[in-house]
């Protein structure tokens, strides 16, 4: 098991009363699963993602990621778990503007003190079709290109599990398609577990499982036998 939660609850203190954002969520995600978390705005999707990835701590309940009890760890210990097991792709890309595309991808490799960070980063950027753009800075790249750099960076640390928060949310349909293809292709190639939060039905339909939240509660957890798995490598590697 890659990831399990038990009675995961998150409440925040508002002025008058405590507000429950997530209530008693229990789920299990196996290695190499692809899971989409869906739901309306404010249903608690992003909160669940942040708890699963150890970016935040639950008010009560447990999260075990790769056997590590995230709910018991402090900030720095969770950071270690993230460095070791987790990759991220965000809606707003979150590239470091101070670093070139290549440097952005090298960063997690360097943090893990692996060998030849530059070579590995080049390979990944080549895979996402950005060999020509190695030395461009984020503000010199289009949205689609930035997200491809972010994907290359997410896979650079060879994560066991990849969390994606609305990865297509800031992109047009064509670019969104390419990004989806790219994520699933790399995911399959590297045997990564994938957990993504999305509004995008096309994206959700590509996952093996869809977990639906409503008002902070898990209301549906469906395995999708017909998940569209086939990669569209040619188009993903093309120029956007």
């Amino acid at each position, binding site marked *: 098991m890659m990831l399990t939660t038990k009675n995961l609850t998150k409440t925040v203190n508002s002025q008058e009363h405590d507000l429950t954002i997530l209530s008693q969520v229990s789920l299990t995600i196996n290695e190499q699963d692809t899971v989409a978390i869906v739901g309306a705005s404010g249903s608690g999707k992003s909160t669940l993602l942040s708890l699963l990835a150890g970016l935040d701590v639950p008010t009560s309940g447990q999260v075990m990621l790769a056997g590590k009890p995230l709910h018991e760890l402090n900030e720095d210990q969770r950071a270690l778990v993230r460095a070791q097991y987790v990759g991220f792709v965000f809606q707003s890309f979150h590239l*470091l503007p101070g670093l070139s595309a290549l440097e952005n991808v090298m960063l997690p490799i360097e943090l893990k003190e692996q060998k030849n960070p530059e070579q590995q980063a080049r390979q990944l950027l080549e895979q996402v079709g950005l060999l020509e753009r190695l030395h461009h*800075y984020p503000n010199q790249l289009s949205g689609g290109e930035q997200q491809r750099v972010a994907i290359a960076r997410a896979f650079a640390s060879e994560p066991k599990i990849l969390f994606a928060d609305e990865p297509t949310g800031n992109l047009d349909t064509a670019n969104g398609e390419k990004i989806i293809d790219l994520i699933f292709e790399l995911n399959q190639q590297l045997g990564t577990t994938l957990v993504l939060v999305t509004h995008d039905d096309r994206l959700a339909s590509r996952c093996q499982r869809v977990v639906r939240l409503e008002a902070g509660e898990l209301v549906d957890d469906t395995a999708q036998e017909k998940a569209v798995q086939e990669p569209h490598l040619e188009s993903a590697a093309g120029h956007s």
Partner: protein
Amino acid sequence: MMSISHAKGSGTSGLAWRIFRRDWRSGEVKILFFALMIAVTAMVAIGVITDRIHRAMGEQSSEFLGADYTFSSPRPIEQSWVEQGRSNGIEITETLGFSTVLSKGDKFQLVNVRAISGKFPLKGELEIADKPFTSGMKIQGSPELGSVWVEPRVLSLLGAKVGDKVDFGISQLTIAGVIVSGPGQASEVFNVAPRVTLNKQDVEAANIIQPGSRVSYGLFIAGELEAREQYIAWLKERKNTTQRITGGKEGTPALQASIERAETFLRLASLVSVVLAGVAIAVAAGRFSRRHYDYAAIYRCLGMQIAQVHRLYFTQLSIIGLIGSALGVALGLAIQQIIIMQFADYLPKPMVPIDWVPVLVGALSGLVVLIGFALPAFFQIARVSPLRVLRKELVPQPLSSWLIYIFAIVAMALLMWWQSGDFKLVGILLGVALLAYGLIRLIAWLIFKLGVWLGKRASTPIRYGLGQLKRYPAFTISQITAFGLAFIIMLSTVLIRSELLDEWQNQLPEGAPNHFLVNVQPQEVELLENILAEQSVQTAGIYPMVRGRVVGVNDQTLQEALDERALTDGAVRRELNLTWMTDVPKANQVTQGEWWVGDALSQDETKTNQLSIDEKLAERLGLKIGDKLLFSIGGIEVAGEISNFRSIQWDSFQPNFFIIFQPGALDAQSATYITSFHLQQAQKPTLNTILQQMPTVTIIELDAIMAQVQTILEQVTRAIEFIMLFVLLAGIAVLYAVLQSNRDERVLSATLLKTLGAQTKFIRTSLVAELALLGLFSGILGAIGGEVLVSALYKNALKIEPVLHPWVWIIVPLIGVVFISLVGWWGLRGLLKQPAHQVLRQM
């Protein structure tokens, strides 16, 4: 449990360096970097210049004295003391001083002899001419055996000329030259007998000193700073109370006040440049850290630990600190060298070398400022939650604001104290800072009131602009603080500078008296007035002078009436110059009691004569208004009652008196007269006319010394002007940094307005209204704070009477409005022309 190894120092510093380079290119760290560089440059340049000019002035003061120090003793000085000095590399010239009579034929003249062996003077030069009142040769040395140098009037008194022989004890000396100028002249104004200088060996040959003769034994002392200070300390431990050590500055009372004020100003300027740099750094660091919250959240997301993020940013801070300080030191040294070269003509040659202490202090202060003002902001960066990648509104829990303030204030106070060594100045500055803080709160409150008022009246764009200020009170207050502080400091510097210069101009105006005439006989006064009138020479008044000694207080003897300390005061141990006057003399002010009206009723035995006394002397002797003093004047006792205290400007180059009687009180005494006047070089022959017609008059020429005083004041003035310029530049840097730091927010809100369909005119009006209001409020703060700071400094540090400057109340807010709205608008103008989506993408 965790097995992976993590990026250690090397990885982080490589990353830090890369990020620094990129941030540099994008302008992120430039403001921080330049603020630091300006701070270090200012501190190094000001520190080194102040130090060098200070030491150079010490050298020049030594020229007035003729040595770094003099030592005088009524008994022969232990030869071992002299040996002690010489063996430590100190230059020592031994002198003898005594009064004797020179004669030529049937003419006799009492003279003050200075007998020298060896080099004289040790500092500065003697100017010896072969005719009176002409320029001569500048020399260091002693007269040859058998020869004597004399003051000009000796020639007319003895009817001699250079080359003639005069009798000196049982031997004869040849007059080898006339002393034009030399050390000690300024303090010899009241010596009645003219000065002659001769070789010490001739004294023994003349067999002129007999047991019981009053002889003063002296040492002129000069040497390297450290060695001579050690030696002086050594002497101080051994000397008895009759022996006196005089240092360089004490040799130039006329300059002391001016130099001290100038030094205070320079110290102040370097302090305020530290404050300004601190503000600029704090503002720039705040912006830097806010912009880096996102990046830190990403690092944390990617698995960096808090300590690693700290290390990343502290490495960056160190890079900024080291490079910024190094460049600041280099630039500061270059600038001070340029300034020193500008002054080359006025400064002693060779110029004193750079002392590395102020350089080091400057460089280290830069780092202290950086740490004190940037560290709190930098420390925040790593505390950001990684969750910020999903929820952008998350900012790190602010550190306790008191903690930051205390940290910054302590850092600042320590730094200021280190830089200035002056507790009082630091106290005043911190006091004004606290007051400014109170004012800022008040102004913030005013903004809300004004907002409500304007809300009902102003046009929409102006209301919107004001709304921006109201919406983010903390932000608004921090901007007003920074702008206001910059205005306070710039304003104070300008005000103090111009008032110091005015003060000096008043002290030594064009045509200030540069010659004194002493020992004018009563029957000669009219003649003198005629001679001076013929040459159109204006005097500062001709005053009678009687020499007398204080012998009693309130019908008691001095021993009974005064305490032990007062009894050792010079004023009760020697004869004082007494005078009488109808009106308060120029350069004097009655500080307590009343000046008299009319003459004393000398016939009315029941009335006591009134007198006026220097307030400092009264304080030293513990005298009050109404106390009665008894004087012995030429063996006759005269009583007087103190009716007022005066403050006296001793450096005014006017005849000044400790004690002034009511007219009529001293009528029974035989007086001589004293006057001072200004002579130009071309009018110098007038002195010959005077001496021919009244040979017993003493002429004291101060024109050479006054020219030197002028020169010193001029060079200090230039230093002050330059340093003021520097402070102004630093102030503008702060204003710019603050405007830059809020640029993003302004661009964003303006762009949003644009996307909502606002016209450029609307955006411009609201932005300018916002900026102008900021300028107005900080200008008001600047004017109030500046006035308070300047008054406090005048009263406590500079000893100048505080005055208000009404024009400042209009001008400074006006400058605030114009400068901040213009520069602020200018910086945003280009961005607002770009399409909205492009701007939003760059944010």
